[in-house]
């Protein structure tokens, strides 16, 4: 046996060991580079709080620099992992710095200035993994406080902040003409085509324009749309029969649990449609191509290092010549078209060497060509004996939940399928178990349910492109499990909260469930046609515990009036920010659950604007109250904990209001009518 002489260091320090990768000091402040990116979740502020405490510096002297190649590679900003992964790394960094630069015992201005000078004098090539800090943990000063978001003033005041606001010298604008349907190929574009002020870029079915003026490129795109001739084919499934299609299409099984078969007393099936990320901003990117070994890209990707590698692989160039910097765009809520837009910008910039090209997608392309959250269906069966579940069987069918750059061994960037000689993108994959699964995320219930059999079926069809959207498969799995728990509770003649508690031993889970019930007024009488329902899960089975109680009124449609969210997210770095994230997740899930569905015929996606893909609006937004458990346990993430529980809570509330169980999302008036018909004619 060999003994590793090095101290145990956090994973992200192990993979980014040099001090200079993380830290730069000068001008009386410290700049901490992170490999995470701001998506509207407030991560720059939360990490500023963690870093300031770790370095024993006042908050306003610490600036956080967003991910860029050259800074630390912390993988994706996804999966509610940023605080969990960054906190140990920043604390290790801080401990080394406090020790070597001799952090002062007090916070006087002079002492702090001298400390900053000593930090600036540290050797940037210092190996952080070679160090066992001898100083104790720094006290929490900023952590736990409601530090205001560093990025909000510029956004509220309308200052340049977003990627599309970049205006470098020599800027050109770019647009890409996307095919009208997923399987279309370009067969004709008039040789004589031209449009004022633009250059045409064409490579196979990839067509774009570049020009000095934004109105010129927009006019050129409209003109191209009118003259391009496409060969289109019917390749899409029947949007009205997705559960049957998923169950009968080729798939690969994953047997997650095989404890035994179940002689069920109840069985039911649930489904969700395809959903769109539906970011308020269309995806965009800027690129400047100087030469094969000097390419710069500005992107709002969630993973700028894997984007760099995918771009280099797609172009067969060395990745050392590609530099990618993150710049903010609107919230993406998962893998939207950010990476695809970056590659589009690169292809356009290659045609005009030396000039920066700012490429922006159209709204319709964003809704129709961005990766979709896959349609899913699940069947749950259980055996109920004397008020307790003794056996549980679960099958879920879904396309894969990731097509991020590098998936399935391919660059996976959209335009690489459109350029001449391009090949179709492979079927989407699922993240591995260690990353919390995709289709099978949260497929294992938190409850004691006796003998369990749980199987995932990853559908390998790729006619519609799918990838990660906030909470991945957990949204449908928690909706199905928690709806079914209510059905079983009714069979047992028990209150839904009591029934859950009877199957729950985890103390933190029980505390969250009880908190939600208490704060929501669970059991208090409600008016006619209104109902209350609960949903609960521990995200990814190892993340945050979150319970949601929904109060809905059902008249001509489902109206969610109030959501009570209770959560244990471990140590809360920024309580106000965590509440904002959890409330936002619950409200977004309300939109998915009551309204959203990607529409298509057998050839084209037809929900390509805000009228055909409606999302929740101000008059329909519920009141949300968020209650956090106070704990100093390690942070476990917050951003994706509420989505699944909210969906189930709403469906269970509809059942309480109407006596109708709706198992197919979204919970529209039509879905309720279909559920009534199904109950009348089983």
């Amino acid at each position, binding site marked *: 046996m060999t003994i590793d002489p090095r101290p145990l260091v956090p994973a992200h320090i192990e993979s980014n060991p040099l001090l200079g990768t993380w830290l730069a000091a000068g001008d009386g402040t410290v700049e901490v580079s992170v490999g995470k990116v701001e998506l*509207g979740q407030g991560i720059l502020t939360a990490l500023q709080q963690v870093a300031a405490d770790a370095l024993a510096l006042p908050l306003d002297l610490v600036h956080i620099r967003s991910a860029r190649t050259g800074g630390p590679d912390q993988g994706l900003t996804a999966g509610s992992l940023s605080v969990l992964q960054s906190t140990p790394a920043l604390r290790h960094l801080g401990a080394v710095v406090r020790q070597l630069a001799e952090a002062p015992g007090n916070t006087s201005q002079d002492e702090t200035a001298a400390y900053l000078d000593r930090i600036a004098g540290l050797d940037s090539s210092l190996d952080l993994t070679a160090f066992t800090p001898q100083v104790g943990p720094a006290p929490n000063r900023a952590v736990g406080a409601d530090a*205001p978001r560093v*990025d909000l003033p510029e956004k*509220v*005041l309308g200052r340049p902040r977003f990627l599309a*606001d970049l205006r470098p010298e020599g800027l050109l604008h770019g647009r890409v003409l996307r095919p009208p349907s997923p399987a279309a190929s370009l067969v004709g574009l008039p040789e004589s085509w031209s449009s004022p002020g633009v250059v045409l870029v064409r490579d196979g079915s990839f067509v774009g324009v570049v020009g000095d003026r934004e109105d010129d490129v927009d006019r050129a795109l409209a003109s191209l749309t009118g003259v391009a001739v496409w060969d289109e084919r019917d390749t899409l499934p029947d949007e009205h029969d997705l559960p049957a299609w998923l169950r009968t299409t080729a798939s690969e099984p994953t047997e997650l649990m095989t404890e035994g078969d179940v002689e069920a007393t109840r069985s039911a099936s649930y489904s969700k449609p395809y959903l769109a990320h539906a*970011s*308020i901003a269309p995806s965009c990117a800027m690129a400047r191509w100087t030469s094969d070994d000097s390419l710069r890209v500005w992107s709002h990707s969630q993973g700028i290092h894997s984007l760099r590698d995918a771009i280099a692989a797609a172009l067969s160039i060395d990745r050392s010549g590609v530099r990618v910097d993150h710049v903010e765009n609107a919230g993406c809520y998962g893998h939207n078209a950010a990476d695809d837009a970056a590659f589009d910008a690169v292809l356009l910039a290659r045609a005009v060497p030396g000039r920066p090209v700012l490429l922006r997608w159209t*709204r319709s392309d964003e809704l129709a060509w961005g990766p979709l959250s896959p349609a899913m269906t699940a069947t749950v069966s259980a055996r109920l004996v004397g008020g307790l579940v003794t056996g549980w069987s679960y099958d879920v069918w879904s396309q894969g939940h990731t097509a991020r750059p590098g998936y399935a061994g391919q660059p996976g960037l959209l335009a690489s399928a459109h350029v001449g000689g391009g090949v179709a993108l492979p079927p989407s994959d699922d993240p591995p178990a260690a990353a919390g699964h995709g289709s099978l995320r949260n497929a294992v219930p938190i409850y004691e349910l006796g003998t369990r059999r749980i199987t995932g079926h990853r559908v390998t069809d790729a006619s519609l492109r799918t990838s990660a959207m906030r909470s991945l498969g957990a949204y449908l799995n928690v909706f199905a499990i928690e709806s079914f728990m209510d059905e079983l509770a009714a069979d047992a003649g028990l209150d839904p909260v009591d029934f859950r508690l009877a199957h729950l031993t985890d103390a933190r889970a029980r505390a969250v469930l009880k908190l939600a019930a208490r704060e929501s007024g669970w059991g208090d009488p409600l008016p006619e046609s209104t109902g209350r329902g609960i949903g609960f899960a521990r995200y990814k089975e190892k993340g945050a515990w979150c319970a949601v109680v929904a109060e809905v009124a059902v008249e001509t449609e489902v109206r969610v009036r109030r959501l009570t969210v209770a959560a244990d997210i471990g140590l809360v770095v920024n309580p106000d920010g965590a509440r904002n994230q959890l409330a936002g997740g619950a409200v977004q899930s309300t939109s998915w659950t009551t309204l959203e569905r990607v529409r298509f015929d057998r050839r084209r996606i037809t929900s390509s604007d805000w009228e055909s893909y409606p999302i929740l609006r101000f008059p329909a*937004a519920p009141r949300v109250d968020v209650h956090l458990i106070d704990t100093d346990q390690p942070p476990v993430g917050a951003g994706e904990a509420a989505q699944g529980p909210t969906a189930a809570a709403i469906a269970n509330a509809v059942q309480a209001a109407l006596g109708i169980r709706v198992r197919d999302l979204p919970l529209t008036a039509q879905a309720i009518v279909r559920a009534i018909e199904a109950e009348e004619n089983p």
Partner: protein
Amino acid sequence: MTRLTVNGREVDVDRTDDTPLLTVLRDTLGLVGSRFGCGQGLCGACMVLLDGRAVPACDTPLWQAAEATVVTVEGLAADGPSPVQRSLIDHQAAQCGFCISGIVVAATALLAAEPAASEQRITEALDRNLCRCGTHQRIVEAVLDARGDLR
């Protein structure tokens, strides 16, 4: 050449009549605070005050703004944050913040017309503004609070 007044300054714009006002603001005049969200007047991210009325700049052609007075989100902050902007920051009423410029403009137009607007009136006035992050409640609370500052 089209003449209009933007944030109190007269400008002459040399773009064709059908160019969207948003493109003129962002590309010609460098006022990028009005954000491009859809280009179809359906999301509200690009709202500006056109002669005091909140309109989406993306489907307002330049000819419609000729001789008119345009105020953008930048113009509302010309003398420091406006009451609506200050209240939104105080309430931390945004997540990604891409929709917030248009919401500032829509809320400002509402409170100018109805200084005591009710919560229901505020949600109705913001019906044309989409927020995808789910920050609706904080935004409405911030606008409600801004009423006092305006009086």
